[in-house]
């Protein structure tokens, strides 16, 4: 019972949400760098992943100023859906899902590997890391600091 009231005013868990925000910001600026500076056009699946990561950068920020623990309620679902898209994209990318099944136009193939950093880091892989990092932190946060 004490547990329920103890946290309401404290800043416990701030760091977890802050790190989540860092990840979302890195993904936001990173993806903008790839498309706007390097000029690699995002395919359809990339756009779906962007749709779910961009609002996270805003939502986490709102949840940090002032610190509001209920931010986990609004952000966790977005991150989970986003992870779904990035896993699907990764499977298309690595060939587990055949090309004919992927919802891409002829002009811009989602299966085409446009960028490989250091020979093995691909964009969908980075997306999976970002989403799962956020999900893990949010789940920990939810267990320890929310409810």
């Amino acid at each position, binding site marked *: 019972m004490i547990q329920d009231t103890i946290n309401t005013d404290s*800043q416990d868990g701030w760091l977890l949400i802050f790190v989540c*925000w860092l990840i979302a*910001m890195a993904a936001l*600026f990173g993806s*903008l760098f790839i498309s*706007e500076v390097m000029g690699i056009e995002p395919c359809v699946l990339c756009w779906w992943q962007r749709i779910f990561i961009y609002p996270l950068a805003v939502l986490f*920020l709102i949840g*940090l*100023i002032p*610190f509001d623990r209920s931010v986990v309620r609004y952000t966790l679902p977005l991150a989970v859906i986003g992870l779904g898209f990035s896993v699907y994209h990764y499977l298309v990318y690595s060939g587990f899902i055949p090309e004919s099944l992927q919802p891409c136009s002829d002009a811009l193939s989602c299966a085409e590997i446009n960028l490989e950093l250091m020979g093995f880091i691909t964009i969908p892989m980075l997306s999976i890391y970002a989403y799962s990092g956020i999900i893990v932190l949010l789940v920990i946060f939810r267990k320890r600091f929310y409810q």
Partner: protein
Amino acid sequence: MKKNMIIVATAILFVVLFIVAASIYNSQKDKELGNISLGKIEYMQRDYSPTMGPLDAKVTIVEFFDPACGTCSAFYPFVKQLMNDNPGKVNLVLRYLPLHQNSDVIVSIFEAARMQNLFWETLEQAYKTHDAWIDHHVARPEKFWTQLSGLGLDMEKLNTDMRSVEIANRIKQDILDAQQLNVSKTPGFFVNGKPLVQFGFRQLQQLIETEVAANY
């Protein structure tokens, strides 16, 4: 309060990092592209390429274009203006990069019109009537055909000429040259072999003015 400062500082850091990384990337790309095209100057122009302006001009604009490309159409009067601003000093070489579906058919109509000395008129007509013959980014040659009346073209001859192997080969060659020169979008500009890296009216104008100043 201290935490809010950390957040603000981090946000600023992200923006600054982005800008710095972008400018480093762009300046490197600038150098790289410059080197590529200087090493591949022979792909820049073919003896069959249509040219406009004085042949002895010391500044040559090479433009890879697609007849169905809206930006190419928007740049056309601007490029002409830039040539007029530097009378006798700048000429234009056109190369084909038909990226839109069926654009290559439109290009062969241009080439066939060229045999009747009506290349530029046909090109301008194509740009002028974009809305009439492009549906959702797909060129409709049959619709463009109806826009050609009034130019004084011998339509029967045009119809035969546009199917020539020679024209098909020219288009193929231009597309291959574009690949060699790393041009994947239209319009793709080179001025005296130097690529227009940062795309824009002003940037093209600057590039041309620099070359004019260097050569005259």
